[in-house]
């Protein structure tokens, strides 16, 4: 009975809301992301019971408790490893990893890069607030150098990771950036991420209003965001600005901002190609730029076989060649003797 219900009645956002009280600080960017995810899941055409949300440790990692799906709140840094095991065990599942900048890039850095390299089909949403929230405000691996925090009263001495560049370097096949407060763009990115066959990495800029408030405000405030955010659209010139009057031009291997008008025309603006890895690298280099806009959207997509399908293929091939495993045959396979 339940079967038919889940299969025939279209799912809605509400089907994905659990009965647990959400415990993030009021105003935390996590709320927006939660609601965006809950909005797109019903559209995926996947039975609700096939969703699995896995998280590590950190503020963001409470996420699975708020989803009315299967969920696993694991241990610090290990969410991608746990999700890998679950997905390989059951490739039917739609697996989502909810992690943070500390969880994914610090304690879980190793699992993060190896998951990307293997291209296991899962969606990694990394809530990047550039701070440790749950442990109450130490600098994170994405905090800017010089950041004054509880554990760096004289300023942090760590150079930060550049998440899209790291993911590209690790061989990621879907790399994107979203912003908690930019719902429109985020929904599109999430949908594409979910549909991508392979590891999708979405860096979600997320405001922690308690320990790092406003770190992305230049990208989200009305009066600045048009000039600071570059929305990446495949096959479209990379334009931005209030009146869409600015663009990025490539000079040598560097981007520079041009004003569209008398001197430069639309043909001078570089066209985004989400399948060009070199371009994705150049775009990821804008992450910490003071002068150039911050790219948001899909940096890079590549279609390539996923790990878990290759696992299934190997099993199928092995069965074809050797026949279905037979224990008695295996046990008797070498050097046996019979005692009467």
């Amino acid at each position, binding site marked *: 009975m339940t079967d038919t219900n889940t299969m025939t009645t279209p799912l809605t956002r509400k089907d994905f809301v659990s009965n647990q009280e959400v415990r993030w600080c009021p105003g935390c960017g996590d709320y927006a992301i939660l609601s965006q995810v809950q909005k797109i899941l019903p559209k995926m055409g996947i039975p609700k019971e*096939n969703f699995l949300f896995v998280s590590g440790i950190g503020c963001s990692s409470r996420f699975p408790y708020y989803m009315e799906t299967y969920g696993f709140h694991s241990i610090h840094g290990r969410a991608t490893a746990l999700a890998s*095991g679950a997905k*390989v065990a059951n490739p039917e*599942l739609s697996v989502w990893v909810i992690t943070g900048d500390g969880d994914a890039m610090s304690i879980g850095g190793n699992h993060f*890069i190896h998951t990307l390299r293997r291209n296991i089909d899962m969606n990694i949403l990394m809530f990047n607030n550039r701070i440790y929230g749950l442990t109450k405000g130490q600098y994170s691996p994405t905090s800017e150098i010089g950041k004054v925090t509880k554990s760096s009263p004289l300023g942090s001495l760590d150079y930060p990771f550049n998440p899209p560049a790291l993911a590209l370097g690790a061989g990621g096949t879907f790399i994107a950036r979203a912003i908690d407060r930019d719902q429109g763009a985020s929904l599109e990115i999430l949908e594409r991420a979910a549909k991508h066959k392979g590891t999708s990495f979405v860096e979600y800029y997320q405001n922690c209003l308690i320990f790092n408030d406003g770190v992305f405000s230049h990208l989200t405030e009305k009066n600045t965001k048009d000039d600071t955010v570059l929305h990446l659209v495949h096959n479209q010139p990379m334009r931005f600005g209030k009146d869409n009057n600015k663009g990025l031009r490539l000079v040598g291997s560097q981007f520079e901002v041009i004003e569209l008008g008398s001197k430069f025309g639309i043909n001078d603006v570089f066209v985004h190609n989400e399948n060009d890895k070199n371009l994705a690298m150049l775009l990821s280099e804008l992450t910490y730029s003071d002068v150039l806009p911050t790219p948001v959207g899909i940096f890079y997509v590549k279609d390539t076989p996923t790990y878990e399908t290759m696992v299934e293929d190997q099993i199928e091939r092995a069965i074809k060649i050797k026949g279905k495993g037979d224990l008695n045959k295996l046990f008797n396979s070498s050097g046996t003797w019979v005692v009467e």
Partner: protein
Amino acid sequence: MSETKKQVTELTDVTIRFAGDSGDGMQLTGTQFSDNTAIFGNDLATFPDYPAEIRAPAGSLAGVSSFQIQFSNRDIHTPGDDLDVLVSMNPAALKVHLADLKENGMIIINDANFTKRNLQLAGYDSNPVDDGSLSNFRVIHVDMTKLVTIATEEIGLSPKLVARSSNMFALGIVYWMYGRKFDNTIKFIKDKFSSKPDISEANVRALNAGFNYGETIEVIKTSFHISKAVFEPGTYRNMMGNMAVAYGFLAAAQSSGLNLFYGGYPITPASDILHYLSGYKHFNVKTFQAEDEIAGVVSAIGAAYAGDLAVTATSGPGMALKTEAIGLAIITELPLVIVNVQRGGPSTGLPTKTEQSDLLQAMWGRHGEAPCAILAASSPADCFEATYEACRIALKYMMPVILLTDGYIANGSEPWKLPDLDKLPKLTTRRVTDPEGYQSFDHSSEILARPWAIPGTPGMEHRIGGLEKSDGLGHVSHNPLNHHHMVKLRQKKVDIIAKEIPDEIPFGDTSGDLLVLGWGGTKGALRSAVARARGEGKSVSHVHLRYLNPLPNNLGELLLKYKKVLIPELNLGQLAIIIRAKYLVDTISFSKLQGKPFTITEVYQRIIKEIEG
């Protein structure tokens, strides 16, 4: 071929050690002889011992690799203490192993390698072959390499490749000594070198040349015969511990109807389990070679949540890395089997040598109150049943189970009676699919195991994780009384297993002067030593534990029936700590930490000392 002119001497048991440089192929030679011995029908036990370095300098003492086998016409439990025959392919091997040879024992030497440089490397001032220092032994020394060169001349291989077949010459001599046919080795060579017919042919010729040499020369005056051992009826094969673990997993997966998922990271001496399982894809086995030990076990936990029979194997250092995750499996109450093939520690320690020093780590090596079931395998073949039992407990009770084996039984071998698969206990799981009244942390069953609802099952969506959960509903709970209750519940879940653990029945008497209590891979030496002392009328008995957590119900009572309890362990007394703490019974520890198993003699002598002393 000349007619057989020599006499045959009847023996009951023989211990041979094949020793040489790492590059001399001693493991292969030993394995071939073992398989041949098994097929011949003797009882046997083997002990490979190899250097930690992959390529220690050729000819050096550090580079000596050896393989020991005892075979017999009676039931034996160890690879033997003292050697009857030592095959020394180079001076270093002779230097390292001579002390273990019995007086008047036989040494088989490859003269080709007793060069000035090799003698120097081994620390010999003069060649022991001709300076009289081996006069207490029977020495057969022959330039094997030269004879192999002659035998393989027509093939036209390079001298280096020819020299590599010398081990087959040595094996040929030994085959002759024990009157063996060696079709299995010829088949092995042909399979192994099927793409290199030249090398295949050279090895076969070397083997035959060695056999013929044994037959012709006068030095060996007699060949030996060890009649078949008496085994229970059945089909047997020679089995190594790591392979038995892999087989145990396969059998458990089949019985439970689950797919097997192995998540792991290569580590000596456990890697062979990963190697074997990765070859069993046609059994629907998924092996995930993870980026590190942590991901190895964590991926298995993910697979367990997703509904597979999830397992991992490692050794001490890897176990240390896995401990946090094992705590997660304990609090989420998921079935998981973790095999620890123990080796010498701490840290990198003695990676290729055996030890039993991870018992307390298994017991108490996690933060928080984190109990799980712990089992130990007692011999290479026993690894099969122990693994199967570990899976049974994990699936039935919904908890991680640690199975302790060790380097000695992992690489050692003995005859294994193929099990009747239909007679193994059927493995049941806690899988549920009916959403009616489902609660993820429902502990109302008699054994307190929670139900196992797996992702993909409609209507049973639930969340689990490392945070404390409320009994029943399984919601995150920081309630103080709930935590107290859950901690006790997790302990009780383990304790309850004792109900179905069979009572220990001592080997020997149910009371007496001395009880020898052991666990794990020391069983063979302990049992043999106790048997020897009992043969001399000593009042000594033996109990060997498979279940270490929980312990068998009758153990406490049993301990009180003996005047003394001796606990021999390859550690500083870890079981002794548990026994003393749990039963308030005094125990005597007999420790050995040399990277080697106990010999029968040293345990026997200690038994005598405790009884007479």
